[in-house]
């Protein structure tokens, strides 16, 4: 498939932007400007070109521009031209006045949000993910599921089916009726979906490990990635999960939640040279580890035939890298020929991209392209 490239972005009443537009040539874009200028807001706007809640996890009702004294955000839109064979496609998303739901428009027609993933695939890294290894498992599972979903879109449906069956099971366990056949039926559904979830995750982790191992010459720390728990793609996973759930009914009812199953799986990352868990490494090393995971995923997805090339959104990444790693990051983005949006407070951070990208000064909701 042709690489996905945004050629034009137009923001209307989105966060700090009243109206702004940006022409793009497919090369990496570095956004610089003071704190609060709106750099991350622009990345967030791009992130709404994927299904979901964007890179800040915000609801569609939260991102409309709001003047002091206004109770709620205004109707907003993010529109893009996406380069495609036979001309640019018009893609847009936003919220209409007095509506709560985000709508997606393709070539002037309202379409399901899922259609976005046919045209744009995004990989992002934000400062919030710097704490990926320090926080509870939820964030890491989300990161893991994004990895799996990007390579295998049916993963999202399997994960939703698993969660639904498990919620139904908990409802029966806590509120009754105590119907062993009904519970077994739910556990069978949960086991089928859970086995699909577990196997998609382990495939994603294995593919990522291969990718990381193939990148040993880069100046980034190498990670060994694996999954905790014992749910993977072994042939007996589904049967074992069903019998585990059946045996755990009393325990789960007492606890008020399911104590075993793939929803408890965690992504385990070890810094290979130091042979230590990522959480025990220095802050800088952790950032570099996550960045290398994200770049490995980008490299992997950029070779996938069946889906659009990923677009990288890297928020405040350059400032935390030493000059050698920063140069390696820019080389990597250039080599992958991916469209990327990077942010930083100073233009000087991006000197290494000179001639290979374009700079945009962000100043209180205004965007100005500067000569590279």
């Amino acid at each position, binding site marked *: 498939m042709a690489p996905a490239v945004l050629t034009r972005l137009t923001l209307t009443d989105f966060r700090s932007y009243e109206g702004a537009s940006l022409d793009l040539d497919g090369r990496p874009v570095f956004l610089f400007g003071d704190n609060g200028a709106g750099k991350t807001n622009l990345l967030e706007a791009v992130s709404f070109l994927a299904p979901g809640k964007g890179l800040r996890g915000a609801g569609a009702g939260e991102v409309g521009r709001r003047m002091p004294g206004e109770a709620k955000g205004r109707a907003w839109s993010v529109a893009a031209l996406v380069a495609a064979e036979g001309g640019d496609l018009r893609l847009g998303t936003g919220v209409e006045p007095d509506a709560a739901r985000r709508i997606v428009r393709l070539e002037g027609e309202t379409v399901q949000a899922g259609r976005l993933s046919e045209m744009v695939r995004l990989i992002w890294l934000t400062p919030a993910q710097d704490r990926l290894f320090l926080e509870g498992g939820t964030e890491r599972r989300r990161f893991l599921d994004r990895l799996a979903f990007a390579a295998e*879109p*049916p993963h999202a449906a399997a994960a939703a089916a698993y969660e639904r*069956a498990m919620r139904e099971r908990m409802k029966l366990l806590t509120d009754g009726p105590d119907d062993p056949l009904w519970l077994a039926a739910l556990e069978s559904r949960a086991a089928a979906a859970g086995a699909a979830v577990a196997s998609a995750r382990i495939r994603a982790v294995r593919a990522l490990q291969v990718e990381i191992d193939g990148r040993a010459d880069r100046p980034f720390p190498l990670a060994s990635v694996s999954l905790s728990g014992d749910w993977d793609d072994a042939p007996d996973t589904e049967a074992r999960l069903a019998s585990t759930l059946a045996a755990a009914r009393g325990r789960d009812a007492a606890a008020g939640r399911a104590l075993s199953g793939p929803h408890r799986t965690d992504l385990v990352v070890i810094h290979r040279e130091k042979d230590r868990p990522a959480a025990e490494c220095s802050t800088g090393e952790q950032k570099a580890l996550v960045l290398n995971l994200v770049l490995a995923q980008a490299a992997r997805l950029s070779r996938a035939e069946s889906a659009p090339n990923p677009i990288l959104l890297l928020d405040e990444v350059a400032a935390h890298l030493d000059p050698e790693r920063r140069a390696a990051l820019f080389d990597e983005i250039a080599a992958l020929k991916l469209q990327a949006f990077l942010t930083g407070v100073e233009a000087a951070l991006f000197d290494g991209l000179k001639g290979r990208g374009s700079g945009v000064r962000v100043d209180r909701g205004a965007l100005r392209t500067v000569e590279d």
Partner: protein
Amino acid sequence: MASFASPEIERLIALLAKLPGMGPRSARRAALALLKKRDQLLTPLADALTDAAAKVRACSVCGALDAQDPCAVCSDRSRDRALICVVEEVGALWAMERAGAYRGRYQVLGGLLSALDGVGPDNLRIGELVARARDGEVQEVILALPATVDGQTTAHYLAERLADAGVSVTSLARGVPVGGELDWLDDGTIAQALRARRPA
């Protein structure tokens, strides 16, 4: 909102608005159309509603809706009494009948198992189904339930309940629709069709 219409018209609009697919706006349009076409629409509709309310009942055998009990399908002697097709609602029964490919009888469950919505086996016509399956005449129960979590949980539950009824329990195939093009199918359907492949 200020009321422009008499209470009789307001009541009509309020009731129409409760129909599936209708909202306040479409209910007002429908009410207006009815009132303007008194002879062609309003009176015949009122008669049809009265008639339906008086005569249509759920079939005591299968749960389908009909003016006779047992329903036309259940009392049709030419129907194959060895087959029961299990559907969620009457709408699915009508879809099966439109296809014209099935000559057995039905069981309308009246919903699907859903703990979160408070629908359990006792709220559905499951006991009746099990009793019918055991009557000696029935040889196969075909589960024609939706491919959702609730639909498949219900199918699994029914298969277990019918395990010792001495009937074979089957379910409809899932995969590539007739006349369907592969590149328009979602990934999940393609994966399911691949798993369910069979000798050509």
